[in-house]
């Protein structure tokens, strides 16, 4: 992930401010200590792991999937997988990249699940952008036109393959470098480049028919 995580996104429940101060005094500043403690089954270390990496995971899932009512469940799923695989971590300093790859895996599964439902005719809308209020979006954002443009962007992305969508969103929305995209997706650099090129081509063609998206790409308002 290319962006540094917020210092501490989670606020404790009301009334726990004093405890939060204690919490800052944690002993897992070093990734190796943190991984070792999690591997030993230390629940406090697990909480610290979650606090340290979950903002990045959430942001990455959001960039790839857009508004999704199940974002909290998906974040939880990523960390459940992290815990299941933590014993296999031999290089603690590669933890961030490894967690990113798990987040990508979970996102890819989510996209494929939606598509399966779509093709089976079980559902006509592979992504419910409308359910914003359940997904962390504020209930009354002021800029509805921007929200509409955002929906259109993700509607276009729905028509790309899961792999194309992943590389495209990680590259342009999440701002990852090409090498990071390739690593997170488990592709070679050449494959990542090829898929990004194809995704760009597809997105570009469809965006030409969407004035709001074109306006964004041209750097203006609709």
């Amino acid at each position: 992930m290319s962006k540094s995580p917020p210092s501490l996104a989670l606020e404790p429940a009301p009334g726990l401010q004093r405890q939060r101060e204690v919490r800052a005094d944690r002993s897992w500043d070093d990734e190796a200590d943190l991984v070792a403690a999690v591997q030993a089954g230390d629940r406090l270390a697990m909480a610290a792991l979650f606090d340290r990496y979950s903002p990045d995971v959430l942001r990455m899932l959001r960039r790839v999937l857009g508004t999704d009512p199940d974002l909290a469940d998906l974040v939880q799923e990523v960390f459940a997988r992290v815990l299941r695989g933590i014993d296999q971590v031999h290089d603690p300093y590669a933890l961030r990249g490894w967690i990113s790859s798990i987040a990508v895996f979970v996102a890819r599964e989510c996209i494929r699940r939606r598509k399966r439902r779509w093709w089976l005719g079980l559902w006509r809308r592979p992504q419910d952008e409308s359910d914003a209020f359940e997904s962390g979006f504020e209930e009354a954002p002021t800029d509805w036109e921007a929200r509409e443009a955002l929906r259109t962007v993700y509607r276009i992305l729905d028509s790309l393959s899961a792999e194309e969508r992943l590389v495209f969103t990680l590259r342009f929305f999440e701002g990852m470098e090409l090498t990071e995209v390739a690593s997170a997706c488990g592709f070679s650099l050449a494959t990542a480049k090829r898929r990004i090129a194809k995704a760009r081509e597809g997105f570009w063609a469809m965006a030409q028919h969407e004035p709001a998206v074109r306006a964004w790409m041209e750097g203006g308002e609709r």
Partner: protein
Amino acid sequence: MNQSDAFERLGKRVADTQDASFDERRVLIAARRRFLSRSAETTAPVGGRRQEVLAYGALGAVLGMALVGGHMWMTRPLSYETEQLRVRVEGARSIVRADRGQGAIRFSDGTVVWLDKGAEAMLSRVHDNGATVDVAEGKARVQVVHRTDGRWRFHFGPFGVRVTGTRFAADWQDSTSEFSLTLTEGSVQISGCGMGEPTTVSAGQSVAGSCVDGRASLRFVTEPIPSPAVSASLGGADHATGNAAPSSSSGSPPAGEERRTPRAASAMADPQEPPPDWEALARKGDFRGAYEAIEKTGFEATCDGAGPGTLLQLADVARLAGRMDRSQRALMLVRQRHPGTRASATAAFELGRMAADRGGSAASAGTWFRTYLQEAPGGPFAREARGRLLELNVASGNRKAAEQAAEDYLRRYPNGPHAVLARSIVGK
């Protein structure tokens, strides 16, 4: 327009728009709570022997909690059963279809979704406080039991319906893209199909419209939409107005519904008929029926003449019927009217448990558990209260307090249900 620059600009706008209206903390707090509460089960990562110990520990914890008796309301996904529906399971999802006639999905919190013949729905994401129900086609009638932290989501075609506690009937016809909804109780918000701002519908109102080419056209209609399903869903009575439902065939409950559900039965009863004995219904495990009976007399009136034991029973029935607000009210009455008694201490424990399990404040939960331990240090829930305090300290990331709580717990209950968790904290 240079493509690379265009995509860079697009990416920035997408990120800015997402970040501007996104409440990251809300999602992360929910994810964190679930992750930490389930990590004991999902991790089991640390080698064979330890894995075994954790597994037995988790099992012990579950059994221990269960042994605390009917008082325990454990945090676990709602269970549900279907009636007269064809069910197809696909992974974690169930697709249900009412092939032969009306069918129902009944959830353990008392929420019911009735599907008319021909309707198809998908049930996904069943949580401890709600579920997601996607109605792909047909008529559904819904009765959601109110909870402050309810997570019920319904989708009818492209329309999303947000509910807390409510009763409504809705219809989505996929072939014509037509949607209608009639609300009897509570309020709902409808969104989707490019509507932008959600539309709020209140009790007694109906909306109808369509979704064509990604554009919603919804209008309020003055009269309830004439659907046999609508009045049937209300158990035969209009609870919004208090009027009895017409006795014509259009007002009849679904076949067999009156017989199957105490709620429907009580709603259909003669208003002069004396209310059924709520305690007898509760003893039979019919908590919804018991709660209906209490409400028929009036919850406050029933509480007025009740002693501490009866108030605790009332709190149990209300909780098991999904009425956390009423349950809390009864427990607070025990605290106010009978201070210093064992019942008052038990009420403190129950209030703590409700706050901890039902999305309330962790600080409030901790205060109630500590109150219980002060008032009944050797009481029947002391071990559980100490374990719960340990959980709260772990969840808050307060290492020092967690270690103290863990050591205290292990000293008192070395084989208690939270002993595995406590040992993982102190490293013993």
